């Protein structure tokens, strides 16, 4: 059974059709890249997958391991194993990083029928994972994303991914706002989590990120539909000729 299946997804925002029939299948162990120009519907697709209110499908279906997500709320989807790394991680003044992580991880563990972490056990676990992502202890004590640099925010996103151990991760423009060094750290963090049981969908404008997170498949999203799919070489083609050539050809 495929991990994630998007079947002919249609979605309207303010009565304007944004997704016009997106279909995509992600199997275990695969990394898919979705590339596309501004306004092609990439972020809308990521919100639709994550279950943001207001981004319900007009028609079509999203399945996670064969279970329909259409009627599920964002938190149900996340507990079930879907993860969205935000393009712009949201600041939560007054919500401490450590307690936020623990709440999230325990929600997922509870769903999976695993034992929830107690405070001390969690701190130990979080520190271990955090050090791998170069997330300092001090950052976990601060309010979530408040006063974090662009790089810190993205590292914190990937730390959450590492701790939640999702089945499918959607990385929405994770490269935006990152310098080369930060991009390397974040990519290594993502690569460390690639395994034969999970799937990753990387959404990006640029080929650059795909030098570090090498995808198995590349899809070009344009005006709400996937116009072309291929291997990593497709990303290089975009880099060389831009989107315009591909779109015109389609």
């Amino acid at each position, binding site marked *: 059974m495929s991990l994630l299946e998007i079947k002919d997804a249609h979605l309207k925002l303010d009565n304007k059709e944004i997704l016009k029939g997106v279909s995509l299948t992600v199997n275990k162990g695969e990394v898919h890249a979705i590339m596309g120009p501004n306004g092609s519907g990439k972020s809308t697709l990521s919100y639709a997958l994550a*279950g943001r209110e207001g981004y319900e499908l007009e028609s079509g279906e999203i399945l996670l391991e064969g279970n329909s997500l259409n009627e599920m709320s964002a*938190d149900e989807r996340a507990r079930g194993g879907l993860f969205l790394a935000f393009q712009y991680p949201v600041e939560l003044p007054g919500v401490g990083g450590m307690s936020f992580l623990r709440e999230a991880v325990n929600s997922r563990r509870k769903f999976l029928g695993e034992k929830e972490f107690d405070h001390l056990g969690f701190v130990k676990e979080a520190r271990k994972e955090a050090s791998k992502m170069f997330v300092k202890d001090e950052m976990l004590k601060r309010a979530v994303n408040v006063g974090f640099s662009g790089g810190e925010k993205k590292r914190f996103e990937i730390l959450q991914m590492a701790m939640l151990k999702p089945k499918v991760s959607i990385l929405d423009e994770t490269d935006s706002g990152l310098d080369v060094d930060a991009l390397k750290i974040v990519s290594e963090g993502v690569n460390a989590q690639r395994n034969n049981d999970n799937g990753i969908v990387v959404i990006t404008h640029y080929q650059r990120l795909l030098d570090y997170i090498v995808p198995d498949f590349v899809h070009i999203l344009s005006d709400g539909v996937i116009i072309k799919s291929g291997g990593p070489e497709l990303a290089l083609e975009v880099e060389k000729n831009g989107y315009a050539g591909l779109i015109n050809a389609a």
Partner: protein
Amino acid sequence: MLLDNKEDYITNVKNFTSSFDENHFRSLASKDFNNWPKPLEEKWRLSRLGALSRIKMMPIEPDLKKISKIDKKTGSFFLKFVDGAFRTDLSSDLPSGVTLEELDDKESLKFLNKIKESDLKNHPTTNVSLSCTPSIIKLTVNEGIKVNELIEIIYEGGDSKFSVHPVLYIEIKKNSKLSLIENFDHITSLVMPLQLIEIKEKGSLKSIKIFNDHYNTYNLSAHCAFLSTEANYNSFSLVKGGVFTRSETHAYLNGPNANLNLNGVYISGKEQHHDLTTAIYHDVPNCTSKQIVRGVLGDSSSGVFQGKVRVAPNAQKTDGQQMSKAILLSENARANAKPELEIYADDVICAHGATVGELDDNQLFYLKSRGIPENKARKMLISAFLKDIINESLDDQFHDYIFNEAESSLSFIID
């Protein structure tokens, strides 16, 4: 003028303002409370007392044998007022350098004259409170005494159809320091606490007020504070009890370099109405005042913040900041904010802002996208909203206590 007996005292109170009606004294039941402010009065437009005028009410005769029902919550020193009367038998000793006395007529007159210097002279509750209080109690911290221990004041008692009138005068003498926690915990009644605070040169008062009266109680708290040179007053109110609670504070910055923090939180549910009203008077140069008010409203509750900051023409280099934020958790909840700046000096920094809104969609989605259930996510955001101001307003030792007090009420408005 010396007051020889109670009659003179009453007469004096009567002359105190023209609006005083001697029929209020001990005979409130015989009159309607028709001296309550009318809805057209600007200061009471957002907090209407109409319902109160329809209740026949008598000032309570304090029962000096009544058993205390409220346990102290913190601190080793505590004072108890039951039915508005101070109870020595239920209170602890005080730290050395701190004295407590019942004012005699002469001292009462001084008290009255000081009140007359404030806006409370025209306040609808002042006369009633002064006429009906069993006694005016004065708490004094002597010069140079820095009290490190906390003093807790508990106000309890009350009875339906009766009004309760604790009156407290606090004097912080030169170079002295005090921390107070006041708990209002009355059963159904009308409570009208009146408080006068004088902080002398370089004196410091930290005060936390927790309004936690039983549902159906009206609490019309009026308090005024006078700050001398380099005096420091840090006041924090947590309003969560009663069906109608108004915490009204008038602060006078009368000496240069005085510093005032006047923060507050209200948490309102059911049909509750909560009101934080403040007036800050910058009368001399180089003073600072800062106000942060936050409200969380659920069900059909309503909340009001009205804050006036007046900067006199010579009060140059004033720094006055005011910020209020309310979060509505239900479609039927209402919040009103009315900041007012009256600035007559030209070299000042004054700012104010007020927002009323719902929880932030982005923040809610972010939490939910991590698997945190909607309800839990909402709680986390509201807790954070309150924790922020509690941590900023209070010393570390009080963070958990006050936060838990706030959170215990939150659970009633977030299902």
